[in-house]
């Protein structure tokens, strides 16, 4: 089953395309990070998947063909929107009760246990809770309906480092417990490597990179070697990024497999997820999408030291 499937999906707000020609398939059972700079279309894509927006073009389906926003999709999808909106004037306990009344499937015991474990006072008004507590409350509500996929829009954006760690810890614990698929967006790349096992990179409204993290890391290497003309002669690799500093050049290249040997005179080292994401974001024309074909842009034009 695919948790999200889109085909030529596009969304336009008045004259601006927030998302265009986005075709992707996210299989179930992954923790998917949706990465991109601000304004790349991450929120648009997630809101389309949550059924809050309707596509201008193309199709989107969730959980094996359900229309986002349909009753079936709503009951199986947990969604936490950007800034984790909650009713600020309600005490936390009442907030939970309101959410319970809006759902048929509801695991009250688990929700209560989670809040107790997090020491969130039920009688305190939501707006008086800390940012971390609010995020946890929103997560509790989203988990209490026992969703199959959890969609989180920038869940970490407003949290301090400790709260981020705790939030991700409890999210990952829920994943371990429920075999839940998670799709979350973030513009912070450095924290993803330990959490995500599937990566989507959006840039300027287009999908740039999609695939399992391990596979992406296996097929990208950093080559260090002599600069100058030499850098341009590495025909057997798709060069994503070139950095020249005097006599030395550093290239991020894509290989067909991890076993590809480095050319003579070059030192090959693995790329980190952060290297990879940043390199692609710097060059919006380069892309790696599932399927055997290699996008031409990734091979040719990217070489421009």
């Amino acid at each position: 089953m695919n948790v999200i499937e889109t085909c030529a999906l596009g969304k336009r707000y008045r004259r601006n395309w927030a998302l265009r020609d986005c075709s992707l398939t996210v299989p179930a059972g992954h923790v998917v990070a949706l990465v991109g700079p601000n304004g790349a279309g991450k929120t648009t894509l997630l809101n389309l998947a949550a059924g809050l927006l309707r596509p201008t073009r193309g199709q989107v389906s969730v959980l094996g063909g359900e229309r986002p926003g349909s009753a079936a999709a709503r009951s199986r999808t947990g969604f936490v929107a950007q800034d984790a909106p909650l009713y600020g004037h309600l005490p936390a306990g009442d907030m939970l009760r309101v959410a319970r009344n809006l759902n048929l499937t509801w695991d009250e015991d688990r929700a209560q246990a989670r809040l107790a474990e997090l020491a969130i006072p039920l009688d305190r008004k939501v707006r008086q809770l800390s940012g971390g507590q609010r995020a946890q409350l929103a997560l509790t509500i989203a988990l209490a309906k026992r969703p199959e996929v959890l969609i989180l829009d920038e869940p970490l954006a407003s949290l301090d480092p400790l709260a981020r760690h705790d939030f991700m810890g409890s999210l990952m614990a829920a994943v371990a417990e429920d075999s839940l698929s998670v799709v979350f967006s973030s513009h912070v790349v450095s924290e993803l490597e330990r959490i995500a096992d599937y990566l989507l990179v959006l840039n300027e409204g287009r999908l740039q990179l999609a695939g399992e993290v391990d596979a992406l890391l296996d097929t990208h290497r950093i080559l260090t070697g002599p600069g100058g003309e030499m850098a341009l002669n590495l025909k057997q690799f798709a060069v994503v990024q070139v950095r020249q500093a005097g006599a030395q050049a550093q290239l991020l290249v894509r290989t067909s497999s991890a076993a590809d040997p480095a050319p003579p005179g070059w030192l090959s080292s693995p790329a980190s997820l952060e290297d990879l994401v940043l390199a692609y974001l710097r060059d919006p024309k380069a892309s790696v999408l599932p399927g055997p074909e290699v996008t031409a842009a990734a091979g040719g034009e990217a070489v421009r030291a």
Partner: protein
Amino acid sequence: MLGLFVLAAVLLWLNHQTATRFSPTISAEALIRAAWLILLQFMPVLAGAFLGAPLVARELENGTARLAWTQEAGRIRWLVAEVVPVTAVLAVAAAAIGLELRWLLARPAWTGPGTWSPARFDLRPLPFAGWVTLGICLGVFLGAAIRRTVPAMAATLGCYAALLYVTSLWWRMHYLPPLHRPLPHVLVGPEYSYGYGIPLTSGPGDYVLSAAPGRPDGRLLTSAQLDHPASWFRLHHIRLWVTYQPGSRFGLFQVIEFGWLIVLATILMTVAAVLIRRRAA
């Protein structure tokens, strides 16, 4: 809001107690009574602007719609759950106040403007409940259409006021075609043509829309004929014809007003539901 309603009802009753105990003449109490009636007339529009309009608009503004609309219940059930209980409770409260007022207004101390006067008519149980329902639904609709709380509140006030104005000053008296009837006295001359000095109603509770001199067959006089002498008036049995709504229609008109208010409220809610279903959060 409900608290306000209850408070209004209690104060009305207290005011009535003091008014009957002390002075039946025109006094401060009478002014206070008038003020109360005016205040009560604002209840439906206040309910619309302060309860109805923010209901959807505030959720959209705060982003909490994105929480509520992605839950299992969905947008339409959410809307029904938000609107129906509030509206039902306030409509029942309005009807109860209407009953109280009808009882109070039947007392001599509360005799004021006639039964058909706008202030009296809207505050009868059925129309009052109807206007409260419409006020809330109008607010919800405008909130869903405008998506911003303060503009939606302002629009609710404006639309409600316009509708109330048109209804009470013109439309209400034409729910059914008015009747025509000659007054019994033969006119002695054009000086009485407009009914000065002649009691305009013969039936109790009638509401006269207009009066004009006319022949026995109902044809009204032209302006040239008005210049004829008194003898001509007597010769042709010119009488004053009144266009009026009979007092017997009072109850029927209340039902009609309640009916169209509820129909309009239902239409507004349906459109609001379509808007909420279709539009982005």
